[in-house]
């Protein structure tokens, strides 16, 4: 998969999202849509396809506006039933729903304001459902405490989830509080025992991005 399907429905949702963004949020929206952002999300899809993974219930941690990853998941995996984005930034919520309006209305996407390093995640999809997610994606590991803490916090519900983790060596930003220098460091931080994929990629912004897929 080398591209995002720019369908008429997606075009309409994105136009409405971009035209309704408050001026002070707009730069963040643009940052979330740059070349490197799409490259890193396409990389996830490519590797999951190679591995034959069939995600069903997907949690995205710190997914920001999630305008790339959510349609990429639905367009490439018929198995996907539900995607839930756990974010700390309240400004993101309204716009993320605009970007993904067609999926929200189909009850396929939800965003929850939550700090995932302090509070457990639990899918809100169905009443009575135990809340487990079979796939957990975090493309923002450099922004937060090492992922072992999240795993420990959620060990009673998220028992055998597949983790797809990305981080960066780009330490020029104040909010990159947890950069790594290799995929092995990311594996160690998340205490991944069964590594299905690990690799690195130099993105268009010249930073090195690392990815690990495993349990």
């Amino acid at each position, binding site marked *: 998969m080398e591209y995002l399907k720019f369908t008429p429905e997606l075009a309409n949702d994105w136009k409405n999202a971009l035209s309704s963004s*408050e001026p*002070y*949020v707009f*730069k*963040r929206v643009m940052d979330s849509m740059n070349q490197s952002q799409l490259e890193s999300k396409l990389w996830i899809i490519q590797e999951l396809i190679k591995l034959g993974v069939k995600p069903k219930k997907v949690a995205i941690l710190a997914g920001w506006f999630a305008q790339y990853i959510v349609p990429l998941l639905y367009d490439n995996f018929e198995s996907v039933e539900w995607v839930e984005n756990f974010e*700390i*930034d*309240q*400004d993101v919520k309204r716009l993320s729903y605009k970007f993904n309006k067609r999926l929200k209305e189909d009850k396929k996407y939800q965003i929850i304001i939550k*700090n995932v*390093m*302090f509070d457990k995640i639990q899918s809100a999809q169905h009443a009575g459902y135990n809340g487990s997610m079979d796939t957990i994606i975090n493309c923002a590991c450099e*922004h*937060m*405490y090492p992922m072992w*803490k999240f795993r420990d916090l959620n060990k009673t519900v998220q028992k055998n989830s597949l983790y797809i983790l990305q981080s960066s060596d780009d330490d020029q*930003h*104040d*909010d990159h*509080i*947890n950069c790594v220098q290799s995929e092995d460091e990311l594996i160690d931080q998340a205490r991944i025992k069964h590594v299905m994929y690990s690799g690195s990629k130099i993105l268009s912004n010249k930073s090195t991005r690392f990815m690990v897929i495993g349990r």
Partner: protein
Amino acid sequence: MNNILCVNWGNKYGREYVEKLKQQCEENCSVPFNFYCLTDNPTEPYDIPIPTTWDSHENGKFWAYRKLYMFKESQLGITGKNFLYLDLDVIIHQDLKYFFELPMERPWIVRGWWNDIEVCKKNFSKFKSTPINSSIIRWNSNQLIEAYNHIEKNIDTIFFTYPTIDNYLNHFFYDMYGAKSLFNVFPVGDVYSWYKGNVFPDDMEAKKIRKECKVCLFNNSGETNDAEELKSLWNI
């Protein structure tokens, strides 16, 4: 009983800053109070040795974490119900009685009204541009134990993640979008900043004394001589 607290550690502020704050309180508080200083160098009767519980986690982040020991006031051996914390780098303009007469359904903290709230929102997830400021806090006993216990429970994550205690408090105990949260904030015009101004965007002149406000803060100067500059203004 009313208690006024300050905290002094390290060597940025000498004893004269504590004494000056005490003097300012005595001159500007018309209700009875006890004055205490939590310090790593206790020498005076009003000094209380500052706890060291979290020192092993010190990593250059979570700036000024020592102030948060007072959130569990029972460990300080201070009796009484009413607490007012003041940073050492403040100038008091008006009667501190005001702070002891506030309604106390919730504790109070400074909202930096000089901040552009859109910048604060924009930078929330970047751990920058925090709208609240812990230079003055007013609480009743046990009102802040929730925050203290939250730190105890998540201490590694908090020291790793948050550059300052103000940033941390903003993330967990204040909602700049208006939802009810642990902290109430002092109204516009109560507290201003020497270096930042008073109210965004209309009253932002820096380095201007505003005696109609209650307290002036010397926060976030980015200047190396802020302690000396404060001293030069003690006798205004």
